[in-house]
């Protein structure tokens, strides 16, 4: 088949170290928005509304430079390395700010700066009148700079620098309206959840360095075949831990739906189109390492499949215009992880790109609707917007068809190619789950679309819907065009232009020896997908478009205990709360008590010790549980210290 032929002839890139030319100037791509951030933040009082010009201009410069770099790389395909000054240099650990520019970088640069520029532009209208208008553009610029460092960094640590800074921008923007406690909590939750993933990412770096003596991406890729299968397996799973947090996969996805607290342009740019795809970027970037452990890849595929299905199910019963899209994003990121897991790295990136188009568009459209309805977010209070908001309606229609997977819109090609690959690479279960997910996706998106735009208006009295200003509709139209033809142009068939373009960066899967699930080929699988999508759309259409929805939630047709559970997000947040927050708080309380009464008491001398013992004795009657926990804590601490001590292999030396 076409696929096998293409995969067999994986062309390798030459590595070119450059200092001049367009790629030599690539360091300006993150630097310009970074300067924009500093300038707007420092001079925001003086700039006031003019801050928008500065912010948009910085994004525009980054976009133009990215296009120039893309032209260069398309013209002369190669892996370009732009050396820059050292960052950390201690012992054997040498890390520079060097940039890596190849085909994958170019795709990411164009998506990030392209959607980034559109969202900057959109925000001029959307955020107008906000008391922290200028600050918003400063943060957007900070995000852009951080994301660009992430995709340009030539080693894991520089990538991690961008990785953490996008996390910071995300924190600042989710909590942009920090006066609301829930929003501030959502911001903190996002940061902390990502930190959990960061521990995995950091340990992955420790392991890579301990095994290979370098954090340089190209060097790691080069040396990956020398790693033992056990190390590769661990390394990939650790990377997955980092990726799962940033890209909102099970079990670390819980922060993303809450992140909708941020202004809607932020949701479009950061929490749909770009930042959340960083985990996909990371795994594809290191796909030559991934192919060394099929077991680890299978785990990635199943995590992706489970996330795709679970989040799609939850989306079915969400009533908030942005929450549906948020769970949809989690679900779609799951498809990208399926792609990575089944060895369809390039298809994963393809879906990343089309998803950036249609999901960015859906969020911007949602923002446009909220703008028109005085910040209404309840789907039951919408409807009938198709005449009042013709541009938003038309572009949303494209996005709806694109995400649902209707040919020839963008999402059809990318999602379908991932599912086809899952089948052809022998992942029957993953394929089936993905197919069911596709039915549900078509269902909840149709529900969303119908409830927002069709039928009679259900909005609150006194609200007068209107189309948004031009600065907001232009980005809608551009993304609408891309969602309509993006798939067809980029990669209409498996070995399309994008697929061939990305060949040199994709891990070589020929050695894995995938066997297809069954006798079906692409020609049979595509119709199956189309049927699945049709079922999803038709079902939702029947349930929502043909019904009077003015009764609100009471007339919700998807009912029953399971539906209730879906509405309550399968109680995952509650379980996490009980396990981590409640238990964590108890532990911290106990430890604090131990610190005051035992540790301080013990070392303050025999007098204090006897007092402490007396207290302890009293506690034994009044607070048995607490004392018990306290003793437990001390024992655990001692065991911990002993465990570390007994496994340490201390020899004075150098780390290489």
């Amino acid at each position, binding site marked *: 088949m076409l696929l096998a032929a293409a995969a067999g002839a994986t062309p390798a890139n030459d590595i070119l170290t450059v200092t001049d030319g367009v790629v030599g100037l690539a360091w300006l791509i993150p630097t310009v928005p970074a300067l924009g951030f500093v300038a707007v933040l420092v001079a925001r009082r003086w700039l006031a509304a003019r801050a928008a010009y500065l912010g948009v201009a910085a994004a525009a410069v980054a976009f133009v430079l990215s296009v120039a770099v893309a032209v260069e790389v398309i013209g002369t395909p190669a892996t370009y390395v732009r050396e820059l000054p050292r960052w*950390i240099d201690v012992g054997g650990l040498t890390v520079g700010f060097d940039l890596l520019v190849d085909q994958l970088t170019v795709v990411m640069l164009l998506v990030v700066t392209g959607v980034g520029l559109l969202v900057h532009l959109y925000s001029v209208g959307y955020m107008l009148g906000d008391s922290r208008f200028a600050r918003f553009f400063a943060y957007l610029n900070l995000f852009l700079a951080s994301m660009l460092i992430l995709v340009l960094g030539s080693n894991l640590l520089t990538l991690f620098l961008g990785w953490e800074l996008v996390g910071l921008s995300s*924190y600042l923007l989710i909590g942009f309206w920090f006066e609301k406690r829930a929003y501030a909590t959502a911001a*903190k939750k996002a940061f902390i959840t990502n930190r959990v993933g960061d521990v995995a990412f950091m340990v992955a770096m420790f392991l890579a*360095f301990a095994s290979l003596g370098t954090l340089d991406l190209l060097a790691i890729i080069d040396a990956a075949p020398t790693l033992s299968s056990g190390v590769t397996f661990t390394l990939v799973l650790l990377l997955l831990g980092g990726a799962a947090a940033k890209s909102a996969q099970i079990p670390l996805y819980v922060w993303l739906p809450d992140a909708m607290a941020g202004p809607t342009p932020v949701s479009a740019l950061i929490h749909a189109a770009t930042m959340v795809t960083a985990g996909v970027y990371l795994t594809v970037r290191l796909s030559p390492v991934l192919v060394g452990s099929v077991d680890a890849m299978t785990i990635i595929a199943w995590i992706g499949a489970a996330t795709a299905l679970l989040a799609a199910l939850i989306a079915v019963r969400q009533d908030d215009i942005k929450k549906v899209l948020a769970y949809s994003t989690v679900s779609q990121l799951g498809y990208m992880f399926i792609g990575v897991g089944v060895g369809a790295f390039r298809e994963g990136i393809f879906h990343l790109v089309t998803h950036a188009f249609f999901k960015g568009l859906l969020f911007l459209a949602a923002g446009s609707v909220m703008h028109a309805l005085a910040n209404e977010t309840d789907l039951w209070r919408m409807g009938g917007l198709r005449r009042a908001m013709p541009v938003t309606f038309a572009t949303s229609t494209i996005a709806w068809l694109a995400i649902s997977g209707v040919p020839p819109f963008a999402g059809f090609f990318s999602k379908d190619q991932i599912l086809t690959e899952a089948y052809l690479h022998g992942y029957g279960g993953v394929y089936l789950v993905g197919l069911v997910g596709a039915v549900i996706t078509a269902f909840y998106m149709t529900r969303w679309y119908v409830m927002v735009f069709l039928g009679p208006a259900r909005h609150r009295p006194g609200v007068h819907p209107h189309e948004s200003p031009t600065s907001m509709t232009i980005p809608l139209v551009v993304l609408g065009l891309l969602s309509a033809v993006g798939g067809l142009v980029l990669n209409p068939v498996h070995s399309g232009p994008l697929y061939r373009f990305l060949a040199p960066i994709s891990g070589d899967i020929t050695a894995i020896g995938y066997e297809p699930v069954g006798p079906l080929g692409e020609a049979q699988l595509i119709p199956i997908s189309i049927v699945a999508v049709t079922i999803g759309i038709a079902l939702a259409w029947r349930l929502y478009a043909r019904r009077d929805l003015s009764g609100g939630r009471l007339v919700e047709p998807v009912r029953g205990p399971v539906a209730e559970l879906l509405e309550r997000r399968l109680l995952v947040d509650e379980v996490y709360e009980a396990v981590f927050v409640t238990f964590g708080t108890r532990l911290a309380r106990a430890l604090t008590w131990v610190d005051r009464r035992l540790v301080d008491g013990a070392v303050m001398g025999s007098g204090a010790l006897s007092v402490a013992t007396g207290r302890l004795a009293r506690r034994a009657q009044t607070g048995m549980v607490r004392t018990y926990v306290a003793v437990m804590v001390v024992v655990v601490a001692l065991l911990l210290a002993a465990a570390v001590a007994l496994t340490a292999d201390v020899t004075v030396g150098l780390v290489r």
Partner: protein
Amino acid sequence: MGPITLTVVTPLVGALLLALAPRSRDRDVRAVGLAVSLATFAASLWLLASFDRTQPDLQLVESFTWIPTIGARFAFAVDGVSLVLILLTTFLVPLVLVASWRSVDDRLVGYTAAFLVLEAAVIGVFATTDLLLFYILFEFTLVPMYLIIGIWGGAGRRAAAVKFFLYTLAGGLLMLVGLLYLQAQTGTFDYVAIRDAIVSGRFVLTDVQQAWLFAAFLVAFAVKVPLFPVHTWLPDAHTEAPTGGSVFLAGVLLKMGTFGLLRYAMPLFPDATTTFAPWLLGVSVVGVLYGAIVALMQADVKRLVAYSSVSHMGFVVLGTFALNDVATTAAVVQMVNHGLSTGALFLLIGFLYERRHTRMIADFGGLAKQVPVMAGLWLLVSLSSLALPGLNGFVGEFPILLGTFATSRPAAVLAAFGAVLAALYLLWAYQRMFHGPLETDANRTTTDLTRRELAVMAPLVVLIVAIGLYPGPLFDLVGPSVDRVLGEVAAAGGLR
């Protein structure tokens, strides 16, 4: 007079000048204090300029006769490690003095003089190579600090000052016994002579002797760091100390402990070092996690930062005893970083306290809207403290963990969770103080930072960002000296 003596003597002369001068106006006292501390900083820059980076051993030796019969001298010399700690000290003192301009007016001469004397003593601790002088100065730092807490501190200052004094004095006494034993064996207090004799094998301590001596030194330094479980004096001392005292305590005094471990305990007792190292790694990891978890539950933001110091200094000890070039060098860099970030946090807490006379987190809320500049700086410093890449904390913490991974994988992985906890307690505190609605009148009338306060914060912010993005010079300064210490430990092991 060489650059080291000048750096030590300048603040002493300033203190003397203040003490002897007739009753003077507060303004003049403040001006003199600032001028003297800036002159000291200038002297330390001369020291930096005179320092030869390519030379890893102690250099710029200055030695004066003191008590010849027991072989004690006023001997000074610096290596990269002591140099950066001296620079940290002289950098922080002017900021501390200016930060106190409004909060301290009671017995101002005494306050300023106490800080200058303290500064001289600490620089002496870092710069001397005489064991007896080191011990005396190490313990003497307690006196001005005791006065600063006991006179200019908060409501519970007496008890806290006494606890601080007795706790750390008791720790030091064991070290004195150890020092005297070493002197009895060698006939000198000259650190360099003893160290060289040990490294060359001319003076041999048995394993048992080493273990006891190491333990004696360890107790003194562990209390000072402070290492879990001998840390409980620190939260009390911080809570009651005036802002300047807290900044200096966290910024500089704690480093005397980690400095002592690296300068004395390790090269003098190399075999004991490698024997004890696994246990110290274990204790450090527990300290990292324990300090962070206890910090979570603190209602007083100053206590919270105090416990965060226990956690962060755990990272420093972890890196130190990982005993490899990456981790141990980064541990020294992290001493500086901790001094800057924690110092900056205590300054901000002080500025807020001056306005509100409370440090209870629950008393604040929504302040980011009212005092955006203070909020922005608070967040930046918190991010530096929780080791966000791009700021100074990360370039210390990451190599510490990466290096430790080579020595003990569980230690590195467990300590890495300290990064999650740090984010949790710092951002949670930030959220409760600066986010949410502006509700109480007190919060609605809190004023933002003044120009003077901004001027105090600016140098810290510049260093926090500069070291975060360009730490090369700092690593280059301490790297060779740390490699030398590790070489000494390794060489002695090889002789056995």
